[in-house]
């Protein structure tokens, strides 16, 4: 059975933020929430790298482990989804997630968080597939349409990969072999030490 995964090729990401914009538009994500974001390290310095981050749909998801109302569930495709009807907006998943994926709309007064929102791998939610209720709560369900998450599909440098984990791992391995340098090459640091920059 296919296992859905994201993989960001940090050597290709140019920090254009098109994935962020595409996600917001496709899923009509509310104000204040970014289901996906681009993180840049060593910004403006040699060796700068950017990586597009969202929910990584963990195998043993820490968000699901800490949820007091157990609103998370995993599909057969291993996509981690949640029910907004059950979510109480406690924020535990936000603290547990190592990627900062769970977001809150912060609606209402007195600092209430509102229902948690996160990347669904464009797989909707517990409502009926492609129903208006599903779209309103969770955004589009591209997987049910026979497509992949839009963030990956419209990546201009083809940095962000999404889909069957085995297939995208194979694609990435082929890229590494062709590239044959830097972070893409196994044993680069052993052979050339840290002093050789690319």
């Amino acid at each position: 059975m296919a296992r859905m995964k994201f993989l960001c090729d940090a050597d290709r990401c140019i920090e254009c933020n098109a994935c962020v914009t595409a996600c917001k538009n496709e899923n009509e994500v509310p104000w204040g929430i970014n289901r996906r974001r681009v993180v840049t390290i060593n910004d403006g310095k040699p060796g700068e790298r950017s990586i597009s981050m969202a929910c990584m749909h963990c195998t043993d998801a820490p968000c699901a482990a800490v949820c007091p109302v157990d609103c998370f569930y995993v599909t057969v495709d291993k996509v981690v989804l949640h029910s907004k009807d059950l979510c109480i907006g406690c924020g535990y998943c936000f603290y547990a997630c190592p990627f900062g994926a769970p977001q809150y709309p912060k609606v209402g007064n007195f600092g209430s968080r509102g229902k948690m929102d996160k990347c669904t791998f464009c797989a909707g939610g517990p409502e009926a597939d492609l129903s208006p209720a599903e779209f309103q709560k969770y955004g589009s369900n591209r997987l049910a349409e026979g497509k992949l998450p839009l963030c990956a599909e419209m990546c201009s440098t083809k940095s962000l990969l999404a889909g069957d984990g085995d297939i995208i791992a194979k694609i990435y391995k082929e890229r590494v072999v062709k590239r044959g340098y830097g972070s893409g090459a196994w044993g680069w640091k052993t052979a050339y030490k840290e002093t050789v920059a690319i």
Partner: protein
Amino acid sequence: MSEKTTKQALDRRGFLKVASLGSAAAAASVAPGLVTPAQAYNPGNEETKGRYRETDHVKAFYRTNSY
């Protein structure tokens, strides 16, 4: 402390004693059959079914990302 205020204080304590006894009795009188254990959310097969299909669209994505 005057005699009047002492009496008022005793009345208040008496009321609190009766109230606490009453609430304890109410808690004990809940029928065991009405207490249901908390249940985790159990999504149905329809919600967790696999939606991913290797359509031509998806195959085109894999093909164009292979270089």
